[in-house]
């Protein structure tokens, strides 16, 4: 059985020193074969929740222009607390 999506986001982030949000979203879309605007917004909220809880931290921001509109992008990194919580919840081996 596949991982739940928030768990998958954390696991993918744990494999790299840091990752931009759009790169993470592409990985989720490929894994779960879902790609639409609603799904993207849901996943961005999940990243905001992970960041608010301190499991991941944003190390860089940039603005991108999509269809003439500015879009905020985040470069995320797993925090030490995030690693601890992943070990606690079986998402990462100690």
């Amino acid at each position, binding site marked *: 059985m596949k991982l739940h999506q928030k*768990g998958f986001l954390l696991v993918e982030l744990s494999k790299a020193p840091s990752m931009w949000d759009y790169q993470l979203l592409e990985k989720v879309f490929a894994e779960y074969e*879902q790609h639409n605007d609603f799904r993207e917004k849901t996943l961005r909220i999940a990243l905001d*929740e992970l*960041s608010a809880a301190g499991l991941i931290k944003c190390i860089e921001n940039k603005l991108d222009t999509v269809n003439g509109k500015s879009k905020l992008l985040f470069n995320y990194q797993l*925090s030490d*607390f995030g690693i601890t919580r992943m070990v*606690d*919840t079986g998402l990462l081996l100690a």
Partner: protein
Amino acid sequence: MASNAVISPNLTQMLHKHYARNQRWGFMWALWTAILWGAWYVPGTALWSEHPYVDIAADQQSLRLAATAVMTWVHAITVFIFLLLWNMVLGKVKDYGRTMVRFSKISKWYALASLCGGPLAIFGSYMAMGFVGPVFAAISSLFYPVIGAIIARLWYKEKISKRAAIGMCIIIFGGMVIYGPSLFGEMDATNPNAWLGYVGGIMSAIGWGTEGAVAGRAMDVSDPDVGIHCRFSFEILFWGLLILPFLATFTDLPIKSLIIDTVTHSKAMLWIVLAAACHAYCYTAFYKSFSLIGVGRGEAIGNLYAVFALIFIAAFTLQLPQWYFILGLILTVAGSFVMFSEPAESVAQLRDNEPALEGV
């Protein structure tokens, strides 16, 4: 928040907008919790006027508690159906399955949250209502955000700013002003069973306060819409596989006939369906607010249910609340604004386990 680069004014502005939007959504979910929780009291109270519940005399305490257990179980099943509908629309049913199966590491926290919120808090609240009175039950429940905030602070270092703490105190004080004056008419020093009611009041405050903090731990790594679905799945199992079979086997309480009478009476079921609709989406909003503004703030704004309950009851019964309701209303709204006036960037990082955001 970027620590390594010079941030352009446009980027700073966009970041502020982003955090302000998240903060607004968090408070909006918490406000929906309060509105729907308040609305829940109308069908929840009306249910006691229908067969089989209306036939149980007020002094038959054990039968009333058994009826409450049956009512809560049927209610939890109906809530589960509403949540299934919600997650089907959101496309999260598969994620629900993926989260439920990880019991030993993740969903066990939702099981514990369901024990805190169901058998401990709801049962405790009914004990407080039955052995002391509804006003005492309402007042004792008002203190649950304090318990939730303290546990969240000690357990996973949730930040409670001075402004959030002041807002929380004002909201609780406002709730006490709304219900407090009626309490004097309810306390009866000659009642030998009153201590059971006080224990129940403490159980409800501890139960609901602990539920938020325990569920918050599981929501660190899982989705709140899915989390609340897991929590109600476990509540159904606790009542249906443990508590009700135990009562049916070891007591002479008519559990089976209470269940059959409830589900075969359309009016009782109508109130249960309405109550469950309110409760399902009230709880969904509750859990969603925790992820965005934290357990302490989410629970404190949720406490505005005291105001909405009286407004809904007044609307349906045409009985206007007392004058001191207006004073309580002003206080609770003022408390909410104090909390909402916190900088959005401060709410964007809820815990003390990382360095604070730049500029905060």
